[in-house]
């Protein structure tokens, strides 16, 4: 365990940014937190979390897959891929840190998504324990510890110090790169803070929600439940939940004609949209109920079925804060929990 006084945090950011790009949560003009590039004078946000998740560091909203030159009947494919540059994402919360390992199971599964892989390889994730989890937080439901976030290195802020420890080789290299600023210390202050955090988590309103139903019942039983009709009744299909969700990773592939070549893009998409599954011969998920059901079945049944029981939700609470009709995964889990 190492530490440095919080008053020296600008020196820390300066040191990190001297050799690679540093991203961290900052307060935007609207007063809400967002990830941004650090430059001299940038202050880290003290908000609990960013409005948008951190997934875009590895799975950006748009990725240029390749380019094409079309000349008469001839087509040329241009591989425009480049290795990612080294970067550090600082201040990632425990929920978002876990979302990366969930995204890994999709994008790093064979055949590996090279766009994601190169960002993952060159990005260092430095997490920050949540000193004050809020009422919409329920990461503990999915076995995530807000007091001990994953990531390559983990930080805590306690008693005027920033504490840091590494979790793997990449984290060790990171700590080594800032070692001039650090002093070695024991973990007593961190332990004390962890206890405080666990005390808060214990009292969170959604912290004890049970996901047992999704383990005990079969895929078809849950899929065929009448509850989906009622739950999805007011869904607008706006896709906000998928947009802010750290684990939503459905994507579209689209071409753009620049006038002097075609650019093929991969962009975020949403299973909540009506045309998501629409094809020339019809639409397999024609009703909003089917699309709504798909999203929650994916996170609570399909993904766990394909990934040793791991749920596709990290309890960040963003969908609770952002859904315009106040529908969210907690309501779905609770509805099924009440037999």
């Amino acid at each position: 365990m190492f530490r440095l006084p919080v008053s020296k945090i600008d020196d820390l950011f300066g040191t990190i940014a001297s050799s690679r790009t540093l991203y961290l949560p900052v307060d935007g003009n609207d007063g809400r937190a967002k990830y941004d590039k650090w430059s001299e004078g940038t202050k880290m946000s003290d908000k609990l979390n960013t409005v948008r998740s951190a997934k875009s560091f590895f799975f950006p909203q748009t990725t240029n897959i390749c380019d094409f030159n079309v000349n008469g009947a001839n087509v040329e494919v241009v591989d425009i891929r480049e290795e990612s540059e080294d970067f550090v994402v600082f201040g990632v919360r425990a929920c978002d840190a876990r979302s990366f390992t969930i995204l890994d199971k999709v994008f790093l599964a064979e055949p590996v998504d090279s766009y994601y892989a190169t960002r993952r390889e060159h990005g260092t994730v430095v997490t920050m324990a949540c000193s004050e989890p809020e009422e919409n937080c329920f990461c503990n439901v999915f076995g995530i510890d807000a007091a001990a976030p994953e990531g390559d290195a983990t930080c805590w802020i306690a008693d005027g110090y920033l504490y840091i420890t590494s979790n793997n080789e990449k984290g060790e290299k990171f700590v080594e790169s800032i070692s001039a600023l650090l002093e070695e210390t024991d973990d007593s202050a961190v332990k004390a803070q962890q206890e405080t955090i666990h005390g808060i988590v214990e009292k969170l309103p959604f912290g004890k929600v049970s996901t047992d139903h999704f383990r005990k019942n079969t895929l078809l039983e849950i899929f065929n439940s009448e509850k989906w009709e009622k739950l999805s009744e007011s869904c607008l299909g706006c896709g906000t939940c998928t947009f802010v969700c750290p684990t939503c990773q459905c994507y579209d592939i689209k071409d753009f004609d620049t006038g002097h070549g075609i650019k093929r893009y991969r962009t975020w998409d949403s299973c909540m949209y009506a045309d998501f599954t629409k094809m020339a011969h019809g639409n397999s998920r024609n009703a909003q109920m089917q699309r709504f059901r798909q999203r929650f079945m994916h996170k609570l049944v399909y993904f766990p079925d394909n990934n040793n029981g791991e749920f596709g939700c990290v309890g960040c609470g963003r969908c609770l804060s952002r859904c315009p009709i106040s529908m969210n995964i907690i309501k779905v889990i609770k509805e099924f929990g009440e037999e």
Partner: protein
Amino acid sequence: MQSETLIPRVGVVTDIRQDTPDVKTFRVVGTDGKKLFEHIPGQCAMVSMPGIGEGMFSITSSPTNREFMEFSIKKCGCLTTWLHSIEVGQQITVRGPYGNGFPVESTFKGKDLLFIAGGIGLAPLRSVINYVRDNRENYGSVHIVYGSRSKDDLVDYQEIIDEWMNCPNTKVDLTIDREQEGWDGHVGFIPNYVKELQPDTSRTVVMCGPPIMIKFTLAGLKELGFVDNNVFTTMELRMKCAIGKCGRCNIGNKYVCKDGPVFSFDQLSELPNEY
């Protein structure tokens, strides 16, 4: 940098055959004149014209064809309409192969086979049928039941007449939906025709066609005594990535592009009826 399956290769269309009023079969090779890649019968490829679109199509030619690949494509959407407008020599892009394919080297081996196809549903089965024809000694008897709206809508009609009907230990039964001048064969829908033909229930069934045909034919097969795990089909849903990541083509926890497109009906019976 590692290889990336989302980046396609250039293919050249070397032949276009007008099969029916709305189905054309496209022959494709690489820019070096050779086959782009090997495949298993039933596997698919993503065919694209940059700027127009990209879509998943079953490779209708058999892997025993060492020279080229073929795609039989019905004109029904944006990309397929464009494909129907092109001429020989046009370059397109192709990536693949994707999906599991039919178990031609395991489950099907040594078995008597019953192929049931409706309309463009013949396209994925043609790959298997020609694979079986070219490895005739490895399979038992073959019974092909194929139907379409009209005589003119039978895909690969010439190949059926010239080759399949003359293939050893192979029986071909054709039907069209309505009476038509110049047609003295069977008239009637596939599900009823299959029941009339009373195929031997020991046959392994490979079926593809419009959903409504599949539904009624399957019911008929069950009445005859066929069991779900001996009936195979190939599915089609909206796809973008073809590798189980974009989130579109799932039926329950299975992705048609990666875990399918070939499923047996006992596999499908454990999945939601959402296709």
